[in-house]
């Protein structure tokens, strides 16, 4: 019992949607809405609540590295926020033994005008380090971040990579008893990610507890021993990581080859973009869940634009069931498509993408959706919108009943010359 680092019991967190989305931003709005419907307000409010966390109970042992996976809006971030005391639970209790350190989104608390050196002190203090601690760790932090030469340059002149390294370095040297990591590794180059993951496993080896939220399944598998799967504010599964990741990747998909979005699944901030249906079709145009690798297939996405959007691109990420990306494609990738749909008017659209035969190896693939304008705004994203199976009958090399490595299985042109 003494070796429990985190203990929570029936933790719930309720958000009033009125407070979150249609917040009465100004006094005038509050007055107007109070006068317009002084009696109706109460019942309306009750309907508009969202349980971001619902009856969460678990114990986490000291020194374990636990992953948390789940779709967007499943409550992962809210859970981390409650655990790090940023926000209070609506009901339930918890007990945290030890100092909690959160690895934040890059550079939260960095001030662009201050130099690297100054920001190390400032950010350290924000994360709860004492000045003496920061001084002791200072050289180590600078070493890790590889920005020695620029340590007295304002961070606004840093490249995004340098910025990121410095931010991570400060947080990683915080030496908390419990380290909370929320999706920071989504950014940065491969080399840097490797370094961060390495640092995180060091932290774990020192007997500290790590909670790691990520959409990167391979990072979860590599780093964590155990994983919690969250869905709609609840923990639906807790298991050794490989089992949990498998469960997560295969759960929640309709077996029909079609995915529809209900009103309550669409985040408020996706407007004016409204996702409708995503369909997987085989060569004959039937909506299917399993395609043959020797036939071409198409993925079509139906959506509505309630207003025109300039520069919109709608596309897919394809991911293997091991969590590795296979490819990313957007409907305006081709220059002529890009020019033609530069401004997409209001209306009802289908973006259809044909994938040639002999693309996929056998196995299951996950389609993620992204509708965004480049570097400006992400309207809608669902990393796991739908999945489909690939049947390899007739694929190249089937005469040998062996497992072929890699997610793709292209039919390539071979020549054998005899000299």
């Amino acid at each position, binding site marked *: 019992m003494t070796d429990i680092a985190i203990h929570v019991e029936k933790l719930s967190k309720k958000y009033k949607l009125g407070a979150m989305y249609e917040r009465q931003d100004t006094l005038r709005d509050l007055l107007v809405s109070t006068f317009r419907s002084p009696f109706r307000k109460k019942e309306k409010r009750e309907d508009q609540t969202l349980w971001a966390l619902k009856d969460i109970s678990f114990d986490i042992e000291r020194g374990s590295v636990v992953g948390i996976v789940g779709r967007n809006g499943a409550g992962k971030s809210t859970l981390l926020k409650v655990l790090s005391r*940023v926000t209070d639970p609506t009901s339930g209790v918890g007990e945290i033994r030890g100092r909690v350190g959160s690895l934040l989104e890059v550079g*939260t608390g960095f001030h662009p005008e201050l130099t690297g050196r100054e920001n190390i002190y400032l950010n350290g203090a924000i994360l709860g380090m004492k000045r003496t601690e920061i001084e002791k760790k200072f050289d180590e932090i600078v070493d890790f971040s590889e920005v020695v030469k620029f340590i007295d340059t304002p961070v606004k002149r840093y490249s995004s990579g340098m910025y990121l390294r410095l931010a991570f370095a400060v947080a990683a040297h915080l030496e908390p008893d419990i380290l909370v990591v929320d999706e920071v590794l989504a950014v940065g180059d491969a080399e840097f990610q490797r370094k961060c993951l390495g640092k995180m496993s060091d932290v774990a080896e020192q007997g500290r507890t790590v909670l790691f939220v990520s959409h990167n399944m391979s990072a979860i598998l590599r780093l964590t021993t155990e994983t919690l799967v969250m869905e709609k504010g609840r923990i639906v599964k807790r298991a050794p990581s490989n089992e949990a990741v498998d469960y997560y990747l295969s759960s929640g998909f309709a077996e029909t080859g079609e995915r529809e979005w209900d009103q309550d699944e669409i985040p408020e901030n996706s407007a004016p973009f409204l996702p409708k249906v995503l369909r997987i079709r085989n060569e004959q145009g039937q909506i299917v869940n399993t395609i043959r690798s020797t036939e071409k297939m198409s993925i079509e996405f139906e959506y509505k634009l309630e207003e025109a959007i300039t520069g919109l691109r709608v596309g897919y990420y394809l991911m293997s069931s091991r969590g590795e990306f296979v490819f990313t494609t957007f409907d305006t990738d081709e220059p002529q498509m890009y020019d033609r749909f530069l401004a997409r008017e209001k209306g009802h659209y289908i973006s259809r993408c044909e994938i040639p035969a002999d693309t996929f190896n056998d196995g299951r693939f996950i389609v993620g959706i992204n509708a965004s304008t480049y570097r400006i705004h992400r309207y809608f994203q669902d990393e796991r919108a739908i999945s489909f199976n690939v049947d390899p009958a007739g694929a190249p090399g089937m005469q040998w009943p062996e497992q072929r490595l890699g997610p793709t299985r292209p039919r390539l042109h071979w020549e054998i010359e005899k000299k």
Partner: protein
Amino acid sequence: MKQNMVTNQKQIQITYLKPAKGLAALNLKDLWDYRELIYFLTWRDLKVRYKQTVLGFTWVILQPLINMVVFTVLFGQLLKVPTDGIPYPIFSFAALLPWLYFAGSLTRSSTTLVGSANLISKVFFPRMVIPIAGVLSGIVDFLVSLIVLIGMMLFYQITPTWNLLLLPIFLFLAMLTALGFGLWFSALNVRFRDVNHLVPFIIEIWKYATPVIYGATLIPERFRFLLGLNPMTGVVEGFRWAILGSKYVETFNPGPLFIISISITLVVLISGVIFFRNTERTFADII
């Protein structure tokens, strides 16, 4: 090494998570634990404020000087505001120093909380450190502009009296007043962004309600207690009394006014702390 481990074990802090219900404990110890953060935020404020300005810290001196010149021309020369024989420039400057400190501090402490939204929604720390740092960072500006005051005192040959030793007390009162109102405004600002627009007006009106450009003696004796309801009257008149010493005390004694001012400030400050503590738990959700 082993011993170290044992003590580490003992020191493990236990945090309890529980729903926010009822009146929050004021828990001022929290603030003490985070005193280094207060220091760093104050320091950041100072560092950043005059970055990428050509004149840098000179602005600290220019601001009250320009104000004083304008006031002297307008109110001293043209409108001839009575100053009980004290030269108008130093009469107004003695009041402008605490007033500018107060106005700057109140603005910062009311608005910086919302400006730190991304911090608040991601990291835990006692939220009150932000308005506190906003009030503290003005002190350095204030101290720098004291140099001008000393220059002016030499120029007008004002001999310092023992009263001057009480100057820090009046400054402290200005600080507490700014903090008290700053806590109210910043907490309200999280919910109602109207505060952002309102604060400049409040400060502008407040300036005229405070004897900065005129002296409290301008107000008929029987209404003067009304001025006392404004804590800044006590501060500003206190400053004049401390700086101008005997010259000023003959015509006006801030004693009774000062007591009313202190009481009002304490009421605002204490209620501000309570209000802030009780709303800060929802900041991360609505900011």
